[in-house]
């Protein structure tokens, strides 16, 4: 999280309260450690549970693993990977997430470039509309879009789910990228234009390479958003096209008896975003800061 940076600036006296004086440095570390542990425990619990047999899970808490390491087994995972429905839904998640991310980034970048650098009538007014669209709750669109999809015969298809994600991803994409693109020095665009570069050339050769940090932020955001989505897929997908979240959700009502699917499945579902998060943390935080008003 390099952008946040408030790591012990020398001489900086943090704005603490009187408690600050009573607690010595060591005590602060203890508090931090405690909070950190509290924050980690839920995920740790899921992870360990996913490595235990269902019978062990119903008998004793996951923490007994620390005294009985023999309980650890990968059987639930091998069962999970042998489960055709789950594997299909994992594949569906990929089929939904990748196009939805690529399309949002591409179309959003095109529009953002227009908003930043092409002067057209009503541009500012339109941009205000885009900003307004950022907070529109998806609930307001579910029913009409469902009807639209039925008419187009794409209800229940992956295409439908993807398009819905693209639609609701675009306002934020345009907002984030437009602000970043507008900060690219104009001279760089003109230097290209002077040599006969078309808009498309400028977009490809100047905007995209220089806008890469913002594009990366957006891509990560959109990826996480779509990968983690439940509601959109719940409405617009069917049994064949449902992503992992929906497949797991249908097992939630019998939580106790389905724990052997749910725990490894949920961990599988969160492991990909987690890897993305830790690999691209910097961009993730940047995107968050730039677009912190998205709902």
């Amino acid at each position, binding site marked *: 999280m390099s952008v946040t940076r*408030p790591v012990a600036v020398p*001489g900086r006296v943090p704005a603490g309260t009187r408690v600050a004086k009573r607690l010595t440095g060591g005590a602060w570390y203890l508090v931090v450690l405690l909070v950190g542990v509290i*924050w980690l425990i839920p995920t740790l619990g899921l992870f360990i549970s996913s490595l235990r047999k269902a019978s062990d899970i119903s008998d004793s808490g996951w923490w007994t693993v620390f005294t009985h390491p023999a309980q650890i087994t990968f059987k639930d995972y091998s069962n999970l990977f042998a489960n055709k429905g789950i594997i299909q839904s994992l594949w569906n998640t990929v089929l939904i997430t990748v196009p939805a991310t690529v399309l949002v980034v591409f179309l959003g970048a095109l529009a953002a470039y227009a908003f930043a650098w092409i002067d057209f009538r009503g541009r500012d007014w339109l941009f205000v509309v885009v900003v307004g*669209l950022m907070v*529109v709750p*998806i609930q307001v669109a579910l029913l009409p879009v469902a009807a639209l999809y039925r008419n187009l015969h794409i209800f229940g298809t992956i295409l439908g789910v993807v398009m819905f994600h693209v639609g609701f991803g675009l306002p934020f994409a345009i907002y984030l990228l437009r602000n970043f693109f507008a900060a690219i020095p104009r001279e760089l665009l003109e230097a290209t234009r002077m040599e006969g570069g078309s808009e498309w050339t400028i977009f490809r050769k100047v905007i995209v390479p220089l806008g890469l940090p913002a594009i990366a932020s957006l891509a990560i955001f959109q990826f996480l958003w779509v990968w983690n989505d439940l509601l959109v897929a719940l409405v617009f997908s069917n049994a064949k096209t449902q992503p992992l979240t929906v497949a797991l959700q249908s097992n939630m009502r019998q939580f106790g008896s389905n724990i052997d699917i749910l725990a490894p499945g949920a961990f599988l579902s969160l492991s990909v975003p987690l890897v993305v998060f830790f690999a691209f943390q910097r961009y993730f935080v940047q995107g968050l800061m730039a677009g912190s008003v998205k709902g």
Partner: protein
Amino acid sequence: MDEPLSAAPAAGAAPAAGPPAPSGPGPAPHLFSSADHGRSPLRIPVRVRAGFLIPAAVILAAIIIWPAVDSVWLSLHNHDGSKWVGLHNYKTMFTDSATLTALKNNVIWVVCAPTIACALGLMFALLAEKIRWSTAFKAVIFMPMAISFLAAGVIFELVYQQDPNQGVANAVAVGVHDTFAKSSQYPGARPRPNEGTEAGGGAFNTVHTYQAGSVVTVPLVGLQAASLPGKAAQAAAPSAAPAPDQIEGTVWLDIIYGGGGKPGSIDPGKKGMPGISVKAIDAATGKSAGSASAHNDGTFTIKGLKPGASYRLELPGSNFAQPYRGIQWLGPSLVTPAIIASYLWIWAGFAMVLIAAGLASIPRELQEAARVDGANERQIFWRVTVPLLAPVLLVVLVTQVINVLKVFDLVYVIAPGSTLPNANVLAVQMWNVSFGGGQDQGLGSAMGVFLYALVLPAMYFNIRRLRREKKEGGR
């Protein structure tokens, strides 16, 4: 970069002789002016401009703008859109008890979740300033942001499991409870029906009274022999002649593992109940006169009694209390707070990151100036830091309010079927009404429109912020 977003589109700009606009110095020149009178070598063909905008515009129109308008239309019709019903759906919405519960819960969410998230974020951000490896700390707090609500739901379903042997929340709750209130050794044990009476609070009194110097046998049942502590030994009969100021006796489990033996007699195989406490109650005054706890063989001796006086024996309820079973997290009364807690687990990191960035951007001189002026740490925090953070806090709050209004996944996933009605929120109710069995397009749309209306102030806030940013120049 002074890319002038605020510049009105330069359509047909006034030529040199045109009327002078009173707006002072004009905006910085645009790269591509549309005020080109067909003379500019830079004119961007309409189809090129359209090429950049049309794809996004079409999708936005089809997926957001038109549906938002259509929803209003649908909300004024009946369940399948065939009949105009006016505001009937809205009336239903505000009279239906399920929706009202959802509305009430939404209010709880909106009031609690954003403020607590902000407070936690602020605390964590301040905390992170005090330590050296704050990056790692922040990553841990922030990590749940990457996790889906569904996975978070599974995670917290596990955390909130009722059985303290499964759910970590109750394991902690029981642990804390038992630290302050000792658990009983023999939950559920009781005297044989004719040997004692219940005296309230789970305690048992003997039916008969005994004089000091006599012997009492107290056979208990209602417990599995296997659940006796390991140190329990073969029950022994009390000594035949206790001292005149004492009562002696035996408390034993009047059952033989595997069956056999005669009720009420200390047969081989029956074991004493070590540690059980026995009180002597003065039969005349009703006051406690002494107590003892049983040895491994079940024998006990209550000393210091008045010779000749008569006593009743009491086995206090603490011997038999059922163990504490923890809190019903996902029960009707706690389900909403429990889900809010899981929401906070996810979003506190968001607040923390934004607030930490805000803290870092506060010029150190301001705090130092206040310190030089004699302000103490607390005054600096409340009079300098917090006011300077106010814009960031506001952004976090607004973002969270928008988020919370639309919360769906967490509630839908975590709340068990039995308490879902208690945990209901508008977004879930909307789903239930429209897709989850209700199939009522009209009512569902009305709820969608209502949700939309609720976020409109946030939309206004965003647009105002955008305008201000533009005035400050570009970014």
